[in-house]
């Protein structure tokens, strides 16, 4: 307990010795000297009169000032507890720093030759301006929003102003101020360190931002005082004078909601809230709706809470009868249709009908396979558990060995399916259903993996392109006439590697390498992004041609985001090589895990995925083509029409992948 008390008094005195705080004794001393100068030189008072005016008993020991001191003492105690609970400035700065890495795909050295003093100056100015602008905005919101005014009114209920009035604050408001400071500082620190790294320095005097130091030594404490200091009409458009802030505290109606700024007046000027000080005025401070009990602790702490709660609750309370009525109607509707009984029955049925479980390891995102899982569960009563990971599932399965709970593997791309077969992680399945439903070139010759859907690697071509007939085959991508007009994701991505493998299969290694070199030579920018990003690049005019998987176009075309629909609207689709070997396709597929304890059920699930019901889902969920030739082309893909596909054995793509990778490396795609 003694330690707590000692710590309290130690930290209470800290602001007076901390140059980062407004009430640092050095700043108070400066304010005193300035105030004295004004009293002596401008008002012509004697030294005794001047000192008496500055330390006027009626001001410093008024009921209002005494309330300031009480608030200072109590708030300090409360802030001692709140401080550590606030989000840390460092954590938020790190978040900003990290987010910028995602936005800019890493970090580069910006202005490597920029001198240190210039970076430090830019940092100090950015910090100063954003700090001041955010204070203005928060202050304005505190006045304009009733729920916030309930708290800020505490500060404005001061009828006499002293430098300590700066601490006349409701704790809720103090929390807002702290949050503001943290957000602004973190944003500036995170951004500057991202841009300039270790070259960022803070220009300080006594450890304080140099600009803030200047503000504080030039009489910032006189803002909350009865000493009238103006800067003149011109300067007061740019800097808030102590007199302007005193006007802000004026009880007079004409002064309400004026001069929200702290240091710079430009925010008020721009926001139409600037009021110049003009000639010396005798102002009365406080709020218009003042009460006799404004300085009581109850009014300072509790009343703002009730007023704010009322401000929030009133609109809600108004809506309660409406919401109750809606709920009543819904329940009556359920009762009349027997819906309640139905829902109960459904729940009972689902739990009773679970006869077995199936564990799926999936590289496909949950939302893509959920519809299949739900359809299968409702058809068979089998409970399905899904483990999803974009990477590392094969290694996990390998590490688990015969203890693995996995029954089914689902993934996309033949390269990834091949990994499982190559590591001997799949069990061969002899299923007449799968054999009948899946064409031979789309399943493993050793029956370990099976394709369930097809995706075509097609060309997206800008609608701006006039000679579209010149780009009808993959080979055309290497034509020098398209120099600087092709966009692509990196060659090492499985989709592109598979495409190169298909070119090797069709044309041979040398021709494939020459082709890949030609394509790389035609790129408009460094390979980057996913297939969506390529379409966006065409929309933005960075390039005219891109290779994409067909379903990305479908996703963009039917996207909820208007901008994505606009990207799709900027391109035409070409299914390449229709007069030759056909368009290169890849697959999504899967197999039964080698150590599955439930192979029969696993096989049944795979068979289900080739059924009409599931094959339709592939189109509706992800715009993929059915592998089952008995299933007609679903409506979602009808607009693209049927196309001639390259019928090379899909397994050969995996076999040729290492060679394709070497070509990609050599041409640096």
């Amino acid at each position: 307990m003694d330690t707590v008390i000692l710590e309290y008094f130690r930290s209470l005195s800290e602001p007076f010795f901390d140059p980062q705080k407004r009430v640092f004794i050095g700043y108070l001393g400066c304010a005193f000297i300035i105030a004295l100068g004004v009293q002596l030189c401008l008002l012509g008072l004697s030294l005794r009169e001047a000192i008496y005016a500055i330390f006027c008993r009626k001001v410093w020991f008024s009921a209002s000032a005494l309330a300031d001191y009480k608030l200072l003492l109590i708030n300090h105690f409360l802030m001692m507890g709140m401080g550590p609970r606030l989000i840390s400035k460092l954590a938020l700065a790190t978040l900003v720093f990290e987010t910028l890495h995602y936005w800019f795909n890493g970090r580069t050295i910006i202005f490597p030759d920029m001198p240190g003093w210039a970076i430090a100056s830019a940092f100090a100015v950015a910090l100063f301006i954003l700090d001041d602008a955010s204070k203005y905005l928060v202050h304005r919101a505190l006045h304009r929003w009733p729920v916030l005014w309930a708290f800020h009114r505490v500060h404005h209920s001061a009828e006499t102003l002293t430098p300590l009035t700066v601490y006349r604050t409701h704790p809720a408001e103090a929390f807002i101020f702290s949050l503001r400071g943290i957000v602004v500082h973190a944003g500036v620190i995170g951004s500057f360190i991202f841009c300039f790294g270790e070259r960022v320095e803070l220009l300080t005097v006594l450890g304080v931002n140099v600009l803030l130091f200047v503000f504080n030594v030039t009489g910032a404490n006189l803002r909350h005082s009865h000493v009238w200091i103006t800067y003149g009409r011109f300067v007061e458009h740019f800097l808030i004078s102590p007199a302007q802030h005193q006007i802000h505290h004026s009880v007079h109606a004409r002064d309400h909601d004026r001069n929200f700024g702290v240091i710079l007046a430009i925010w008020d000027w721009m926001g139409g809230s600037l009021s110049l000080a003009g000639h010396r005025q005798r102002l009365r401070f406080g709020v218009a709706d003042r009460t006799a009990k404004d300085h009581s602790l109850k009014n300072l702490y509790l009343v703002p809470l009730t007023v704010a709660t009322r401000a929030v609750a009133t609109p809600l309370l108004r809506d309660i009868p409406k919401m109750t009525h809606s709920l009543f109607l819904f329940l009556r509707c359920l009762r009349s249709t027997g819906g309640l009984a139905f829902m109960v029955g459904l729940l009972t049925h689902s739990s009773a009908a679970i006869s077995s479980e199936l564990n799926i390891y999936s590289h496909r995102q949950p939302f893509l396979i959920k519809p299949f899982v739900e359809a299968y569960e409702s058809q068979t009563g089998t409970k399905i558990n899904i483990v999803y990971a974009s990477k590392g599932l094969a290694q996990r399965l390998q590490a688990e060995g015969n203890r693995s709970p996995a029954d089914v593997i689902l993934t996309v791309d033949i390269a990834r399916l091949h990994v499982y077969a190559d590591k001997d992680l799949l069990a061969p399945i002899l299923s007449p259903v799968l054999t009948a439903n899946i064409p031979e070139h789309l399943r493993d010759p050793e029956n370990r993996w099976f394709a369930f859907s097809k995706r075509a690697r097609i060309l997206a071509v800008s609608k701006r392109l006039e000679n579209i007939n010149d780009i009808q085959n993959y080979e055309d991508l290497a034509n020098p006439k398209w120099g600087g007009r092709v966009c692509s994701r990196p060659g090492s991505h499985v989709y592109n590697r598979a495409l190169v493998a298909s070119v090797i299969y069709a044309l041979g290694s040398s021709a494939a390498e020459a082709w890949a070199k030609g394509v790389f030579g035609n790129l408009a920018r460094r390979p980057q992004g996913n297939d969506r990003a390529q379409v966006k690049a065409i929309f933005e005019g960075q390039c005219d041609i891109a290779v994409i998987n067909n379903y990305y176009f479908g996703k963009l075309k039917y996207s909820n985001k208007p901008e994505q629909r606009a990207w799709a609207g900027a391109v035409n689709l070409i299914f390449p090589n229709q007069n030759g070997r056909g368009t290169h396709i890849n697959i999504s597929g899967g197999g039964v895990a080698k150590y599955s304890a439930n192979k029969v059920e696993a096989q049944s699930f795979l068979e289900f995925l080739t059924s009409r019901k599931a094959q339709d889902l592939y189109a509706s969920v992800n715009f993929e083509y059915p592998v089952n030739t008995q299933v007609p082309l679903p409506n979602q893909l009808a607009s693209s029409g049927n196309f001639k596909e390259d019928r090379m054995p899909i397994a050969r793509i995996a076999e040729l992948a290492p060679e394709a990778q070497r070509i990609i490396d050599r041409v640096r795609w």
Partner: protein
Amino acid sequence: MLNKLIISSSLVISLAGTPLLANANDDVYAKFPVTLKEYKGTKTNTVSYSGQIARHTLHDSLKKLAGKGNGKPNSELRAQMMSYFSGKEGGRSIIAPASKGDFIVKQVNVDQISKKKNISGKTYKGTINGMPNNMTGPELVKFWIEKASSANKGVDRANGYNYPQLISKFIIGGMMYNQAVDNYLDEKLSADTKPNNKPYKKGAHYTGKEHSWDEGFGYFGAPAHTLTLTPADVYAIAKRKKGAIKKADYNGDGKVDLKTEMTFAPAYYASGYDKAGKGKSYLHTITKAFLVGRKLIASVGGEKLTDQQRALLREYAAVIAKNWEMVLAESVHKYAGSVYNDMEKLKTIMDAKGDTTKMESKYLKHWGELKGFALGLQTGKGNLGETATKLNRMIGAGPVLINSSQVVDIDSKSNYVRDQANWGEYMLHMAKVQKLMVDKFGIKVRTKSITGDLASLAKKLGAGNTAEND
């Protein structure tokens, strides 16, 4: 609990260290007399860790060899590397560390230090989860040797591997650290394993506990007279800097005896962090703990150690293990920072369409060091659990290359399988790897901190919890 133990041990060590430094010979890990009661021979000094020093030279030599390839399959080079890794034959010369200028190395042949030693027999036999295909430690090194023999100067630019660094840094953890902390300073401290009242092996003049402790010290690779030197001296010896022989040559014969006077990898890295002057003293803390422990063993005069004495010995061992682990974690932190800095420079060059060749070489070297240390860190006596999983996922199986690809797997024909990767995300992973090292291992030196500037600026701007109003 562990922290308490370490603090108490540190106290014991610091107390014990005071009289230790009173006498010059007391500072040196050497010349402990024979205590074995049944010994009738003529030997007088029981300190012996030549097998460990031989392995240090095998490691240093293997690292040199791994960088000798010319980009084409080379079975001769492969066989030579394998002889240093898993062979036991005689006649293997010490390729490194060799004499350099005035730094004259006494031994030129591994057999002059100890015969029939290899690395593979002492490399961590558990599964290395940070690389594909569940390889054990020796299998992984063998796989890398295979690849290094056909790489150009040990570097596979297409897949992003610098094999000399990968092999070396992994062995620093997977053999030196693992053997010391998981074997000699753990299992061999049990009551009935290598007891102190019996010879280490038949005919030996040292006891089971004496030699076990010595072998642990041998793997640390510090000169026997480390406590008479500064970390900078020990570092200079490892670098064979001009004039460093004066610091190394403790017996004054004008040569550096690799058995007792040389600095090898673990001590080199410990000295590197200590000389940064950030208040840590890994090198002296570890060496002192070894020395005090050895004195304790010698003090019981060939009797079996009591439970209390063994408990004290385990406290010293815990100090060694914790500080050694921190040295490895400091290395992971340092190289994650280097990788991040390299990526920043590479991106700047790429954006300016400049030549990345030189910078890429640096990047792959640093990544190899990062990966090797990260894998080695996981071979201690405790399972790092989630920390290891996070570390392996964030670092991945290969670096993100300038064509935005990354090795994600190895197929059954030993081909690397690559996929697209995100440059910016990987840079962030490096920052998170550093944070993981700080949070989980409590490292203090934090060389090349990525977010260190954030922290210092945030601190300069103050806490922010203020009630000031306008």
